[in-house]
């Protein structure tokens, strides 16, 4: 116990987040990627709803794969490309097509699940630009939403999908 705050158990490392090197200093080894993103790097778009990989609110893209940041030890993400919702959001006050669709279709209520869904749907559409409704439902079934019943979210994904018609 007493060793907790001594130098020996603290780590310093650099994460690659949204295309930038982000140094992390004096972190406890047990800190997960979600904690480091939120509390050390100030990237609070990834949310903390279950912290056991069940709800998808902390969805990030790690080396091109969709992951829950809460189930990844931060130090194990060294040398990997991390993309968070902030990395999928235009600078300034802009919105991506997908974010615009979420807003226009009423897919947002409390909004706690929204950033994770934006990441998750981005991942879906980048793999499968024209999913069926069942494919959409399956792809976002790891993202829990308690407010919407998913109806407006499905509508938003369909609108975003249509925006990308060839």
């Amino acid at each position: 116990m007493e060793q907790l705050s001594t130098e020996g158990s603290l780590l310093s490392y650099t994460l690659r987040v949204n295309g930038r090197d982000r140094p992390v200093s004096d972190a406890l080894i047990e800190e997960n990627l979600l904690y480091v993103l939120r509390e050390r790097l100030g990237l609070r778009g990834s949310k903390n709803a279950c912290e056991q990989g069940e709800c998808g609110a902390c969805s990030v893209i790690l080396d091109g794969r969709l992951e829950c940041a809460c189930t990844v030890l931060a130090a194990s993400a060294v040398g990997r490309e991390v993309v968070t919702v902030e990395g999928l959001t235009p600078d300034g006050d802009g919105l991506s097509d997908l974010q615009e669709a979420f807003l226009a279709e009423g897919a947002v209520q409390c909004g706690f699940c929204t950033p994770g869904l934006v990441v998750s749907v981005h991942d879906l559409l980048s793999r499968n630009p024209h999913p069926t409704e069942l494919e959409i439902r399956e792809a976002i079934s790891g993202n829990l939403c308690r407010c919407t019943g998913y109806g407006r979210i499905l509508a938003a994904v369909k609108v975003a999908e249509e925006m990308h018609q060839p």
Partner: protein
Amino acid sequence: MTTLDTLAEAGTTDRTAQGLGTSARRPDGRPKVRGQFAFSSDLEAKDMLWGQLLRSPHPSATIRHIDVSGAWRIPGVVSVLTADDVPGRSSYGLDYPDQPVFASDVARYAGEPVAAVAADHPVTARRAAEAIVVDYEVREPLTDSEAALTAEPIHPLGNELYRQTIRRGDPAATGVVSVEGHYETGMQDQAFMGPESGLAVPAADGGVDLYIATQWLHVDQDQIAACLGLPLDLVRVHLAGVGGAFGAREDLSMQVQLCLLALRSGRPVKIVYSREESFHGHVHRHPARMWYRHTADATGRLVSVEARILFDGGAYLSSSTAVTLNAACFANGPYKVPNAFVDCTAVRTNNPPCGAMRGFGAVQVCFAHEAQMDKLAAALSIDPVELRLLNAYAPGDELIIGQVLTGTAPVAEVIRACAAAPLPPGSPDTVPELALPGGAGRTAERRRVRRGVGFAVGFKNLMFSAGFDDYSTARCRLEDGQVTITTAAVEVGQGLVTLIQQIARDVLGVDEVALGEAATVGIGSAGSTSASRQSWMTGGAVDSACRTVRERLLSSIAQRFEVPRTGLELASGRVVSADGSFNVSLSEAAAGEVLEETAVFRHPGTAELDENGQGDAHVSFAFAAHRAVVDVDLDLGLVKVVEVATVQDVGRVLNPVQLLGQLEGGISQGVGFAVMEEIVLDKGKVRNPSFTDYIIPTALDMPPVRVEALIEQPEPGSPLGAKGAGEPPSISSTAAVVAAIRNATGLELARTPVRPQDIALALAGQPSEWAGEAPATPSPAKEAMP
């Protein structure tokens, strides 16, 4: 009547109009989709500490001693608190302060706070809490609601939390047909996504600023100040971003302990519950045991209802009073009956405290009265929809509490329109494999899947009832043509912030409406974001404040510009006279002008029920019908809900897309309560405090919602003509889904949620697990007649 097509059209075509009736966009939507909206868990402050509560692992124990020295020995720990450190009132509560801030001598539920620590890192805080040694003398918990009535009291205030009796009509009256049943509903969790969290910042004046996700800022302030022993003005409660609520944030969670940690340490302190702690840290939906007997004449007209309803309130009172009152008032559903004898009681046990959740009281009894309606229809060989229509309330009818329905009551309309909805195409033989019961597990054998259809109707009061002084406060400020609306009303995701802007735009003819901070500072109470009341109450206050500002503004402009006041209007950001000769932009006409108006809106008064449970206790009622279609795997007992169709009585549609979101979201919680959601208790301990084990509907579980129609009959007395729409979608959707499962299986299924074993074991001839747990001795109110 609004049809599905017009609703969808309103939602997807007109993107520019922003007033009432349009699908104006929510003002917080942009930061929310960008991941930049600050929820209560996203806050930070300089030199901030992290707080952690230590909770009793025992549902019932005497606390002999608490040794906090282990926590103090951990470097980084700044503050450690127990009950001895509470400077003011030692307990709190929404209705009555019966819940200790910290358990000191007795722990009454597993999860009750015993101590709190603040440290420089959340991991340090957690370990420090674990290092506190509590010497418990563990006792046998009282976990059976029936036994609680006669057991030794587990609290100085006794085990009966509240009782509501209704006696109406002739106790001897009886019809030729009688149906009877025992029903049970489980304990549901609100399962909002954003866990309880807050940041308390000590202030130089000895007070504290609390930034918190809650449902009613001023009632939090009252309770916190009493426990801190501080005057109200030194406890400033500010709304932080709320990640859903559904009733679970009506009671205090960590507010008092968090403020105490900040005041003691002299530093800002933040607490964020883990999901597991969240399950222990808020109230749940009351489980109910119910016994019902209905009699009817040969044509199906109800003659009498007797009901006994028993709620497990858990360890503390919370809102058991209002839940019990509601359940009694709505025990018979939206159906006429001249003779009603209802006995509804909430009892105290060592189970987790139960309180508010969407539709409270009405949800539980709806499950029972709708099963009874289906039983009665079967006994009479009448179509269940026809039986409901035959007995449906209409305006002018009397409720079982004797209150006359003076407002709109389109019960027959919601029933007819919902029943007329076309059934979804397809069958278990044709649905994709992933959409069969069992989903991705692909467990179902297609030929053993049966489709069923069920129907249910429910209703509930809107706003606070039974004599409560229910009001909301709003301020409209117009400065140089810029409009700012300030209220302390809590946005939990439902879209009140959008509605406030829509109202102000309509009244003041502007596009831009700024929203002031929701806090206890500088503005009066807006009341609770619950009971489907904010559109009516805060909507009414905003409307009133804006109208007064408009009148003052137009009078001032008429005087200053020497134009006739009559015919002068505000539209599209301009001030225009009737003949068009005066047409000036608002910013020019109102330059240098500051107008401010604070309005308090009250609904007409209500009365407490008398000793026979009679009285005008409620303001208004909303009705809704649901029809569910399910596919059931007969061998494994798995259920796939195929579709839920609904028709709702909404008064007036204010924002079609947001309304649709309430309907779909409310129905998803109803579907969850029908087939998957239950807090499982083992001798008072929650066995499934996680999203791994407490299952809520995913996008694969949630069926399409068919909003067949919305009944728009403007409600007299409602400032905007609208009825609240938050709760009705959750009331009869559960009952409809279970009715559909009964239809598919032929089983009685008298308990919700329906678990796979309830179907599979029963169909295999095995006894039902819960048989015998329901109240064994019906003691309807008429036996207690004076």
